[in-house]
């Protein structure tokens, strides 16, 4: 079976500006995400997670290597027909209401009026924004904005979801709800690729994980296999991989 996401020797270098030197953000990264799995893309801040996702979505051009979605090169807009994307920190159009925003994105996918009505109603319910649906976004809290983001990512009923730190900045309750949502979407058969640096939540929802640091792949595998192999929990593996040494015994 074809991989949903396929990265082969991906390399991304940001050109330096003025006195800033060029920055190698992703180096020789190869990964595959299989259909129907929840894939956790882990790494400390600045590891290159967002950059990798930006390549998958065509925002950033790879300097080398190859990136494919459903077997199609990411530069082809068709590759984005079946995906949903939740970006990091986005301030959605302030002058619109949640309902209007979803209607806007539905139009882009060419949904008919009745299709989009049905879809929007279901999504607003799913992310618990039905009450606030007719209020302008500028009156929303951060958590509510994040839920608008989740709803827009699901507007086309995508097969693959790419979520960039979906739980960052949320309170514990909000985090739990996002986790439940991911679980639910997985049960519907969707493939989910999400980045995070919160390890507790990753362990409970992910089938497989990859840990990157400084743009390089350090560890990849099934969560259960990794735990068995290293004989410790994911957090220890993570800290070990990114070179954090526990206080030395003196």
């Amino acid at each position: 079976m074809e991989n949903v996401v396929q990265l082969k020797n991906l390399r991304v270098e940001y050109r330096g500006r003025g006195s800033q030197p060029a920055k190698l953000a992703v180096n020789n990264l190869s990964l595959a995400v299989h259909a129907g799995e929840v894939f956790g893309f882990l790494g400390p801040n600045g590891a290159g997670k967002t950059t990798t996702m930006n390549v998958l979505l065509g925002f950033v051009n790879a300097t080398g290597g190859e990136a494919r979605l459903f077997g199609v090169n990411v530069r082809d807009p068709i590759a984005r027909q079946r995906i949903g994307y939740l970006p990091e920190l986005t301030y959605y159009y302030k002058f619109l209401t949640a309902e209007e925003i979803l209607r806007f994105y539905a139009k882009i996918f060419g949904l008919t009026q009745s299709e989009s009505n049905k879809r929007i109603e279901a999504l607003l319910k799913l992310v618990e924004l039905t009450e606030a649906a007719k209020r302008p976004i500028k009156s929303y809290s951060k958590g509510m904005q994040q839920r608008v983001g989740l709803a827009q990512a699901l507007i086309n009923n995508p097969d693959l979801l790419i979520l960039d730190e979906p739980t960052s900045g949320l309170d514990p309750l909000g985090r739990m709800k996002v986790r439940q949502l991911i679980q639910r979407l997985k049960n519907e058969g969707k493939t989910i690729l999400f980045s995070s640096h919160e390890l507790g939540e990753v362990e409970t929802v992910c089938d497989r994980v990859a840990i990157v640091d400084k743009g390089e792949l350090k560890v990849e595998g099934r969560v259960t296999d990794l735990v068995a192999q290293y004989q410790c929990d994911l957090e220890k593996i993570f800290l070990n991989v990114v070179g954090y040494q526990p206080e030395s015994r003196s």
Partner: protein
Amino acid sequence: MNSVFAIAGLVVKELQRRKDFYVLFVLTALLTVLLGSVSFFNAENIARYLKDICLLLIWVSSLVIAVTTTARQLPAERENRTIFPLLAKPVTRGQVIAGKFLGCWLACGIALLVFYLFFTVISASREHVWHLVPTLKAVWMHWMLLGVLVAMVLFGSVVFTAPSSNTTICFIVIVGILGIGRHLHRVALDQPEPVSTMLSVIYFLIPHVEWFYLPDFLVNDQNIAPWTDCLMASLYGVAYMAAFLIAAWMRFRRQMLSV
């Protein structure tokens, strides 16, 4: 096409929900009425004077609306990061440019209709005659002109990333074209080479927006520009719009979008 219209619709909705347009309209109306109520001249002259003022204000307001609305579109999408969820949909960058252009141009058109309606009411109240055809021609030409400016500003906004520098540069360019641009070919004759050739080349390259400026006809009750001239000028305008949009697209197409 769906995406282009959806993006255009968003621009129009934004203009409708922001206060700038209303403020400019009320200001134009107030100033016209205020200046019109001061009568220094005899009855015949005041009608002309009033129309002159009103048209000048419309001209300035439309320019401000066109430039400020267009200049903030792409920078705001990037700053608020809405460009990311948008481009993550099956939308090409060309469609984003086309949608933004169409939206800004339509928004300008709506603003123009409102402004000229006000102008018609004002002039009819003084003269008791309707100049329907000349007014429509003037609106059309004005709209074509704004189309060229919108395309130019949109191109500017993918070149200069800071919206304020783009707005300033565009205003300078527009004022430059209106003030100096149209005399350049005559200035060129008096210059030594190679300045002369350079100025002539610039003269032929810049969009001559002054050709679209018809209000003189509305004020002086002259027979307005013939249809053929309007048509030629429109084609000229469309060519410039296309050129600016293609340039904007070429530039935006391969641009890296990360913060």
